[in-house]
């Protein structure tokens, strides 16, 4: 399972990177979002998968899965959401002000 997850993470990273390297702001945002998923899955995989029950003491399991990566991820998911939202609005704003979403046309002026 872990090996399979590693391969999946690799695929997500590849696709995300490709999207980030394109010129359209929309695709770049989608790319970061996909890489974000890749990172989350990578972290949880590194903790070992399905090694025990959910980390809830009430379930009275003998073993629990590693709870630390889950705690980290909970933070990561929320932060990811925040940055994605900011990025979206930023590109919206850039489009409104500059009239384009093509990063090639968003280059700084010569004298900057």
């Amino acid at each position, binding site marked *: *399972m*872990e*090996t399979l997850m*590693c391969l*999946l*993470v*690799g*695929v*997500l*990273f*590849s*696709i995300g*990177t*490709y*999207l980030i*390297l*394109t*010129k*359209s702001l*929309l695709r770049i945002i*989608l790319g970061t*979002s*996909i890489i974000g*998923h890749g990172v*989350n*899955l990578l972290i*949880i*995989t*590194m*903790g070992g998968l399905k090694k025990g029950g*959910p*980390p*809830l*003491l009430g379930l009275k399991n003998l073993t*629990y*899965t*590693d*709870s*630390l990566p*889950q*705690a980290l*991820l*909970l*933070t990561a*998911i929320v*932060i*990811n*959401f*925040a940055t*994605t*939202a900011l990025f*979206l*609005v930023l590109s*919206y704003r850039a*489009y409104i*002000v500059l009239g384009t979403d093509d*990063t090639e046309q*968003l*280059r700084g002026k010569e004298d*900057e």
Partner: protein
Amino acid sequence: MSWLHLLILAPFIFAIFVPFLYKKMNQRIHTGWFVLLIPLILFFYLFTFIPEISSGNTRTATLPWLPAYDINFTIYVDGLSLLFALIIAGIGALVVLYSIYYMSKHREALHNFYVYLLMFMGAMLGLVFSDNIFVLYVFWELTSVSSFLLIAYWYQREKSRYGAQKSMLITIFGGLSMLAGFIMLSMIADTYSIRTLISSETLNTNTLFIPAMILILIGAFTKSAQFPFSIWLPDAMEAPTPISAYLHSATMVKAGIYLVARLTPVFGGEAVWFWLVSGIGLITLLYGSINAVRQTDLKALLAYSTISQLGLIMSLLGMGSGALYFGYGDESFVYAVAIFAAIFHLLNHATFKGSLFMVVGIIDHETGTRDIRKLGGLMHLMPISFTLTVIGGFAMAGLPPFNGFLSKEMFFTAVLNTAEKSIFNLDTLGFLFPIIAWVASVFTFIYSMILVFKTFRRKPTFVRVDKQVHEAPIGMLLSPMILGTLVVALFFFPNVASKYLLTPAWESVLPTLAGDLSIKISPWHGFNTELMMTMGVVVFGTIMYRFLKKWYGLYDYYPDSLTINHFYNLGLQSLEAISEKTTNRYMTGFIRDYLVYIFAFIIVVVGGALWKFGGVVINHSTDAHVNVYEAGIIVAMVISAVTVLFSKSRMTSVIAVGALGFLVSFLFVLFRAPDLALTQLVVETVTTVLFLLCFYHLPELRKEMSRIPFKVTNALISIGVGVIVTIVALSANGTRLFDSISTYYENSYKLAGAKNIVNAILVDFRGVDTMLEILVLTMAGLGVYTLIKLKSEGRDKDEGAE
């Protein structure tokens, strides 16, 4: 921490209070009066060291700085450093006193001025007292920095900025090469302490010995404005005159001299050292004196004369280093006198050049010009300044009854002695020493006369309309008067200075001869060659000065395109052009290019490291099994991710990314992470809605219209990143170095009263992290709100201005 450390740190500490004093008190009291206390206290404190040091003792104090690396702030007081420190504090006090009258408290930014000045003073004291070569280096660079700030004090002027940049570039270049030399030296001798370096033997057999020597000399030569690095000093004259008097004639430019003197016991006795130091010194002496005659600006004239005099001192140190070739005996004493002459002239130069700079400042202050062609006839208007100029100028020319005469005679003795010797091939080239010395002295005589007589005699050719020219206020004259008195006093009582200041310094330069060094200075030695040379200088110099107009035109034959300045400017321009061109080539302003650099770097560095250190470990024995749901979800995820890649409609892309997110939350369920799954579900829903909202306002996705190479590069890089990440993930999975620490948290009910371990970690064990996370969320929220709500008016205004 001892009083000695406090001594060095006192100027830095006081500098902190200067801006407050300036703000609160400047309307009533000139800030300089407060600053004056520091050098005065330092001077009198240092003065109390004289009896102890002159009787041959030394003092040390150590403050650990980086003890693990054997780098400690060790202070070492001996004759040489004490002499320098007294000059630094003494001239410092006089310069601050002078600046109180020179710098207007109404117009000038005095707080900057005095902060920089105190910073310099502390750095310079640290430089001469440091025993550790790296501490010395730190102070060395601090003096360069404060000099830069002081030259650029009137930063509104273009010439100030140019001069400051020039001095910075040259002295920092020298400083860095000196650092390299120090590192080599410490590798050879296995010590960072100068005292240990001096006492270690057989350093000169190492192959790094000569390179280290040359690198250190470059540092000393750049700082002491030796040819061909001297070009920064004339441009440094853009600094306020008190600074020129202090840094650029009396103290900072002597740091190179100090270093050469300090390291003479290490390198002295080597032919390379002898020829480099004395040769460069003599060339500088000649170059400076010839160029000084040409100058029309009084400060430029003094700058070139400083270069020339520094060359003189340097050449004396070079000649004196021959003493260490012999070890011990009469032969070495002949050379040792040259070192004494160097130390003596160093003190003399500080006195007469300091006073001359101050007088020139007074003239500038009172008449509004420093141009020799406009000045003249000031003798009756400014009699005290005239007297002071005569004292300083004649001392510089080497005439009695002023201190310059004594050291000049000793200089002639030294060159004559050197010419007769046969070590280091002196029998073939030695005859050049007296010739260069004599010619340079003639020019020195001429420019001293120009300084004195062209300024004060003749008819005035300028008319100052707004006010009558008159003598400066007494406070301004006080400092040059004290220095002028010293110039005369040193002539009549040289042996007092010799006994208490100069001989101890002499002994620290030549520690192997210490105890046997003694000298009696007297102005009269009978009609010997030295006196003949001096008389020749006076006679010939006077004739040449009288007929200055006849041969002055010769200077114009020297083409401007061959000056060092020209090469410097050319070099600087082409460097700037090249760096601009290269920068523009890779700083394209296109975000995709920067991302390509970043990703390519990741691939190369991470991949390279994995390959080089054999980090690839694949071990899936501990893997959990895969069931059919999981496999299905993973296939679905790949499909939705690929859909995003190829979709031409934004709606499809958004939905595909949304689907990916929801599939991730399913995975979380399967991985026994209920909290994650819930959060992911909520976040994904909100994100998708947000995407759709935003996309309503954003343009349609266009087909990527790009050239094939662009796409191929992108594809290659993204596949590279994917592969690297996969390999890293697999290797990390296959290598478990440590056990999980999560078992600790499984005790959460006892520790935190929580049955949900993940929640307990977030709110109890790592509560601060979560708080900061909320902070990030808040900031992002504020950013989103601002970006949406802020009207674009400000932006429009900006565009209107463009």
